[in-house]
């Protein structure tokens, strides 16, 4: 018999084991969540339930709050003009005050989208379990953390017990080998993965991303990929920590660069999946086959390379036909037509997927080559105050403004349009966000085309979907 502890383990198993409180009679595991991130939309009801139960927050020091979804990106002065937004903001302030929870408020200079500021502040570290009442929490997996999006009842459970009941997951290793061609970004990698494995392909899995492409990626690029794990149905996604991870974290606010740092970093590196560990599935993708990608339909799996044609219902597998027909009808696109050349009305650069400084730099490079087409509304929304400040230091707002883009205050903005930034009617939006569901961007009949920030900038200038490789 082999000693279970001596055998090779994946990072997922190591982190899971270290956080197991106990096995529950239901067969689930009671898993300790080391870091709980909260925001204004999914937390108020959880705090209300806490008041009904009359119990305190169990680990206020492990709980951190920001405001992102409802915050306006034009005028952020208080009270907000939207009464409901103001009420949600005040409620979050009150809950944090009452329970002694750190709140990264707009005044603190640290506010931003929860999945942008966690890493930025060094709150997100390898080997952690992290949860947030937000489906894109997998972003934090870029650091080798196991990070889950959860519902409001689980937010309550975390507040009172710092733990949640969850069934163990299988692990699928996804290798992206070779080298990405020019003009192909992290966003294109995750879109290609979802296209290959399907929007439900990851159900029951944690995705471990690796291979040469990931080895070379920056932390921000890894975050873009992990962010959309949920769009592939996976419960979480991660990249093993390496020197890139360590270098990114050194000196960040919650990772002091002191005499303990070297030991800490060594511990992080040891968390990486052991050679020869067991994976429940392995998938390999050749990077040279990935093109700049664009969605044409109503979920992120409906995507194709920019040189490809929109599918026809009779050429797709049987089980996809109805979905393709529904998507074509909603989008009002012609089957078999080229996706390049599709006119757009709005361009949105931002979100927790692609609202970081490297994203804005890439978009600015494209913005320098021209001017936003007449009739197109284009906005750039930094993912956080820190990103905004860095961009200002580098002169990016001037580049965007000169090219006809609107430069905004940080927030989620048009990713889900819970603030005033919304599509109108049937508008088509080239967007660097993560979901192209019907009505996602604020208009019940609005249409979203997901793509990389550079592709969005190129589309804004051309007034239509265009291949970023031909720009400049």
């Amino acid at each position, binding site marked *: 018999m082999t000693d279970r502890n001596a055998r090779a383990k994946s990072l997922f198993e190591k982190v899971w084991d*270290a*956080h*197991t*409180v*106990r096995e*529950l*009679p239901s067969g689930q595991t*009671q898993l*300790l969540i*080391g870091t709980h991130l909260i925001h204004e939309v999914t937390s*108020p*009801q959880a705090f*209300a*339930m806490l008041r009904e*139960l009359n119990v305190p927050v*169990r*680990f206020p020091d*492990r709980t951190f709050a920001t405001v992102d979804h409802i915050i306006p990106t034009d005028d952020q002065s208080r009270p907000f003009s939207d009464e*409901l937004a103001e*009420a*949600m903001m005040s*409620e979050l302030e009150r809950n944090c005050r009452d329970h002694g929870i750190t709140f990264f408020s707009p005044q603190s200079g640290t506010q931003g989208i929860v999945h942008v500021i966690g890493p930025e502040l060094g709150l997100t*570290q390898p*080997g*952690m379990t992290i949860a947030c009442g937000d489906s894109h929490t997998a972003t934090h997996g870029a650091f080798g953390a196991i990070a889950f999006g959860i*519902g*409001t*009842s689980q937010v*309550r*459970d975390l507040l*009172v*017990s*710092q*733990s*949640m*009941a969850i069934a163990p997951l299988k692990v699928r290793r996804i290798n992206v080998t070779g080298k990405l061609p020019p003009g192909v970004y992290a966003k294109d990698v995750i879109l290609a993965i979802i296209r290959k494995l399907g929007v439900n392909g990851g159900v029951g899995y944690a995705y471990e991303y690796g291979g040469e492409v990931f080895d070379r990626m920056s932390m921000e690029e890894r975050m873009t990929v992990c962010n959309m794990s949920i769009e592939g149905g996976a419960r979480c996604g991660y990249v093993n920590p390496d020197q890139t991870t360590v270098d990114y974290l050194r000196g960040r606010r919650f990772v002091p660069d002191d005499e303990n740092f070297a030991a*800490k970093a060594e*511990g992080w590196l040891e968390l990486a999946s052991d050679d020869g560990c067991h994976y429940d599935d392995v998938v390999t993708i050749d990077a040279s086959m990935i093109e700049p990608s664009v969605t044409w339909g109503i979920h992120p799996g409906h995507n194709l390379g920019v040189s490809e044609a929109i599918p026809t219902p009779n050429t797709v597998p049987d089980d996809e036909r109805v979905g393709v027909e529904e998507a074509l009808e909603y989008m009002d696109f012609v089957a078999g037509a080229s996706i390049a050349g599709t006119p757009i009305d709005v361009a949105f650069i931002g979100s927790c997927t692609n609202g970081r400084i490297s994203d804005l730099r890439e978009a600015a490079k494209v913005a320098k080559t021209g001017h936003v087409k007449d009739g197109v509304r284009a906005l750039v929304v930094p993912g956080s105050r820190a990103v905004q400040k860095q961009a200002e230091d580098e002169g990016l707002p001037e580049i965007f403004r000169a090219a006809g883009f609107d430069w905004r205050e940080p927030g989620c903005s048009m990713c889900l349009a819970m603030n005033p930034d919304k599509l109108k009617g049937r508008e088509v939006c080239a967007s660097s966000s993560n979901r192209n569901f019907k009505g996602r961007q604020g208009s019940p009949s609005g249409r979203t085309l997901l793509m990389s920030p550079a592709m969005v900038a190129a589309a804004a200038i051309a007034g239509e979907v265009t291949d970023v490789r031909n720009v400049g």
Partner: protein
Amino acid sequence: MSNDKLTKIDSVKGTGCVVRGDDIDTDRIIPARFMKEITFDTMGEHAFEDARLQAKGQHPLDDERFAGAGILIVGQNFGCGSSREHAPQSLMRFGFNGFIGGSFAEIFFGNCTALGLPCVTLADEDLIKLMDSVELDPTQEITIDVAGNKVRCRAGDLEAGIPTGTRQQLLEGAWDATQVLLDAGDQIEKTAAALPY
């Protein structure tokens, strides 16, 4: 596991309210616009709001004879649609502590269980018998007997369906995920203390 803090639910009693019709979805139970709220407190006020407006006072929830009812009696596939926890919250806050129906949508059923609200099913002819009987005599007390797998009412003791696992959870008081998690006691602190962060 210590059960002292857990509420065991072996039966629910109350008068009934009959809402006929199949496939009543969560949007009908609580229209989406009322979800933009910071608490569930107001959810009860908006239970079936649009349906009640359309019925101009004729909706069962506005029927005086059913006032104060604790048990909602419904048709097939009740609670289909979205996963919103707001739907059972609104019905609970309106005053319902249990549901009897032909069948329930899976997520709605799960959300109800998590709130300690039993959902039990009846065979078609028994359901009709119960609905008719309650409409004829709304003052009668109805019992959802979880322990005995029965619905007891004037029309008789009817065979009630409830999945074994759910029945167990309700009877043992293990329906409350929060309580089950809290039962770990200081094992939570111990696990947290052993972490390198």
